[in-house]
């Protein structure tokens, strides 16, 4: 009884959601988004690692390629009614494309509406990791970046030369 009484004078931890919003740290694992490169190209290269890492198998995608060899997902689907927000996909992603953001307000009356397609996932931002561009590091040539133009690369070898 005494304890209960004391609690009445404590600082309140309950907040008046939704009038008042909770403050979430930036690494909070909420809604999943697909981010973009600094040059606003799609970051996701369709490598399927997030899908493989997902313990509830709620990510499905199909990789494809544009005419210049740049890979991207043809479709990208997350079934949020299955997602457990474990963040494994983000951890697996080699390109920082998939990120969990501090947003949890996703409730729906109809479960079907929890199926997010690429258009629902892709945002116009780099998210938590600004400045990273996978293709600047990878050896694959894409439109606007030829062989030898990535970070730490020599110009392509002239295979007809025998100079030591």
């Amino acid at each position, binding site marked *: 009884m005494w304890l209960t009484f004391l609690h009445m004078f404590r600082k309140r931890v309950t907040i008046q959601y939704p009038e008042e919003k909770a403050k979430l740290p930036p690494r909070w694992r909420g809604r999943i988004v697909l981010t973009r490169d600094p040059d606003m190209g799609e970051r996701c290269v369709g*490598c*399927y690692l997030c899908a493989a890492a997902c313990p509830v198998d709620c*990510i*499905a995608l199909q990789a494809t*390629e544009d005419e210049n060899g740049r890979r991207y997902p043809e479709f990208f689907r997350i079934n949020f009614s299955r997602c457990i927000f474990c963040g494994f996909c983000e951890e697996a992603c*080699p390109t920082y494309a998939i990120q969990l953001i501090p947003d949890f307000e996703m409730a729906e009356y109809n479960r079907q509406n929890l199926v997010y397609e690429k258009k629902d996932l892709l945002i116009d931002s780099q998210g938590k990791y600004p400045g990273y561009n996978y293709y600047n590091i990878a050896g694959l040539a894409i439109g606007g970046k030829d062989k030898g133009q990535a970070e730490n690369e*020599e110009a392509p070898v002239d295979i007809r030369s025998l100079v030591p």
Partner: protein
Amino acid sequence: MATIIIDGKTYEIPTGKNLLETCLTLGFDLPYFCWHPALGSVGACRQCAVKVYKDENDTRGRLAMSCMEAVAPNQRISVSDPEARAFREQVIEWLMTNHPHDCAVCDEGGSCHLQDMTVMTGHDYRRFRFKKRTHQNQYLGPFINHEMNRCIQCYRCVRFYKDYAGGHDLDVYASKSNVYFGREEDGILESEFSGNLAEVCPTGVFTDKTLKEHYTRKWDLTMSPSICQHCSIGCNTIAGERYGTLRMIANRFHGKVNGYFLCDRGRFGYEFVNAATRIRQASAGEAVVSLDQLFHHLIPALKQAKMIGIGSPRASLQSNFALKALVGGDNFYHGVSDNEHDLAELAIRILREGSVRTPSTREVEQADAVLILGEDITNTAPILALAVRQAVRQQPGNAADAVNIPVWHDAARRELAQQDKGPLFVTSVHTTKLDEVARDVYHAAPDDIARLGFAIAHRLDPTVPDATDLPEAVALLADRIAQALSAAARPVIISGACCESGCVMKAAANVAWALQKKNPATGLVLTMLECNSLGLAMMGGHRLHAAFNAVMNGHADTVIVMENDLYRHGKADEVDAFLSKCRRVIVLDHLLHKTVSKANVIIPAGTFAESDGTLVNNEGRAQRFFQAYEPTDIIRESWRWLLTLGQQIENNRMATWRNFEDVTLAMDRDEPLLHGVMAASPPSQFRIAGQRIARETHRYSGRTSQQANINVSESKPPEDPDSPLSYTMEGFHGQPPSSLIPYFWAPGWNSVQSVNKYQSEVGGSLRDNDPGVRLLEPKTEGTHAYFVGVPERFRPLEDHLWVVSLHHIFGSEELSAHAPSIAQRIPQAYILLHPADAAALAVETGGVLAFTIDSRSYRLPVKLSEALPVGIAGMPYGIEGVPYADLPEWAIVQRTSQRQNLNDHSYAKRHA
């Protein structure tokens, strides 16, 4: 056997192997790159280091490349020695200094030997801070993608392509760490076996370009054991599906049939399964109908109809058998030309009643003398040609055996053999790719080839009738061949139905039988035209012509054509007349073709990927293939359709058949030649620890999401009533019986190299033996009388040409021709002439030759070749734009006064 001590433990092992093979067989995880079980060792990559100790007292030991060291009795070695491990890690680190940061966009990822080996050695952090060397890629054609940055210089690609497969246009360029593996310039890889580069290369330099079109990681595929449908060899394949389409075909190791390799027709022909021309709906008349409407329409009609059924050499045994049961044995016809029918029956007679065994492809590799009579096996049975190349390559190795160079020591054996080739004799109508490695080549008319065969047989056994008045050169050739064959320990004769000549096949049988009297190890291989030609022939049935007559004479009014385009097997006007005389033409097939367009009722059948079935290859081996995925729409296997129809029209025989197993069991019981076919795979009730065998890997992704766009509640996965495989990732993931292996995977071994773990001994057979049952064995007692009737010498006729078929690996086979990548490699229609004939007829390259065969006229653009015998013309087999003709046959040439040029393709159309 010898004793060897590895890391303090004693093992009993066979001798003659190297340390690497021995360690892998014993289950050690020892990394390697340049060694390949089929290519042997060259010791180039330095990845497979182990510690070898001199004797029990040696504590320091020395580092040795295990792939270059033969096992010695009582040897003591260490795999886990810290120095050896550090060395292996160091080697990977060096290899990785130039390796691009590509795994995420690399098609090899997830089945990459380099990834596996990197993880295995423990190298995980990049210390090298300098720049990476880069390379430009090349365009290598529709099959193979090139990404040269990823190369680790193991030299496997060129060793396979040039040394093993005899290709000329892939090589290594530049020097030191700049070495470049590619072609001299951009262009299509010429070898028929280029697709194997994707599996041979341990990295993502060479990858499957058709997979890239609909890229899926290995772990995401639903895979099943399958059989290649594109020629009579019956290579074992893995068919992988994702999102309802077939994504790739990979090799499924078979110790007797295809070993580690597939040909490009088999690897890339699969895309017909996804073709836009697939039949997905049933239709009656012009209208698309539902399942109920279809039965409503069909059943009453079928109950009254006088039905006949036309089977197919490209359909499974079960489908053909179900059709035979539905229409009755007397009304079942083989849907092949009469000549093909005769040749298949002849083949069975030779193989069953003769005394010579037909060897497997693997045994052909070990032959030390090969005679090919009349066949162009590179185009009709490519993997057999690859085996013959190995025979030619390995035979000089007998000398290497004499100086104790072991079989796996590739570099040393090649050095010793130099350009030395084993005795291979090629006889054919036109040049074949094997000519370049043959000791003697003979291009002649089929009858002359048969005459040579008789002459050889006569030299081996004088009771065989001789071919008289042979030209001297040919008689000498016969002497040489007879000598070489008699001197060999394991001679093999190859012939077959693709040269369309019974005489040639008989001559081949005579040679084999005559030789067998001297040497019981003689083998005789006969190739067939299609994947199940032999199986169909073993089932018994009437000729196609008899079917035509049955309808023309009013004995039948309804025909069920199953998985067969009759226009590929019969003359167009006859087929036209036949089909229009039928009251009802019911066609079951999966692709649109001319016969389908004439059908009243079209029923969508499943392709091999959507079906279970059994095929009999040219060796008489019955091999089972399994459904890779449940068909969509109302597509089902042909046999299942026929089963349903049979039950609906109250066919007594079929009343109790419910599933695949019932059909197979009835076939095993009722078809005498197919007795034993049940044993081709374990029954559908087979379980391991109560579990089905999973078609999906344990890492399969996306199952709660892939259908979620349609319905967020996942549907129940399909159950397979026909096999012990499951459609999910649940089930047994270890090593199942060899015929049920859906994919190769072992902990730490994600790439195809994991097949090592499935073999009883590295490079040997799969554990519990290679799949399939041989249904044809030779007679052991009594001998078959030799064939008599030596054909007359071929004499050219004025204004006539003897037209024979020429086969093309790309285009001659019906199904693979529908794959877009293969379609890019199909030659244009042509007629091939000797320049002398062309001059006499006043046509030249590119001009049009008009001729009639059996009073039907043809017009085809001319190509010339010196290698073709005079008086003979070659017509490509089965190629779009080349109408069917009953070959071989005389053509009467119409001399044209003016030469015409071709601008359109209408020349090929028949002028009826």
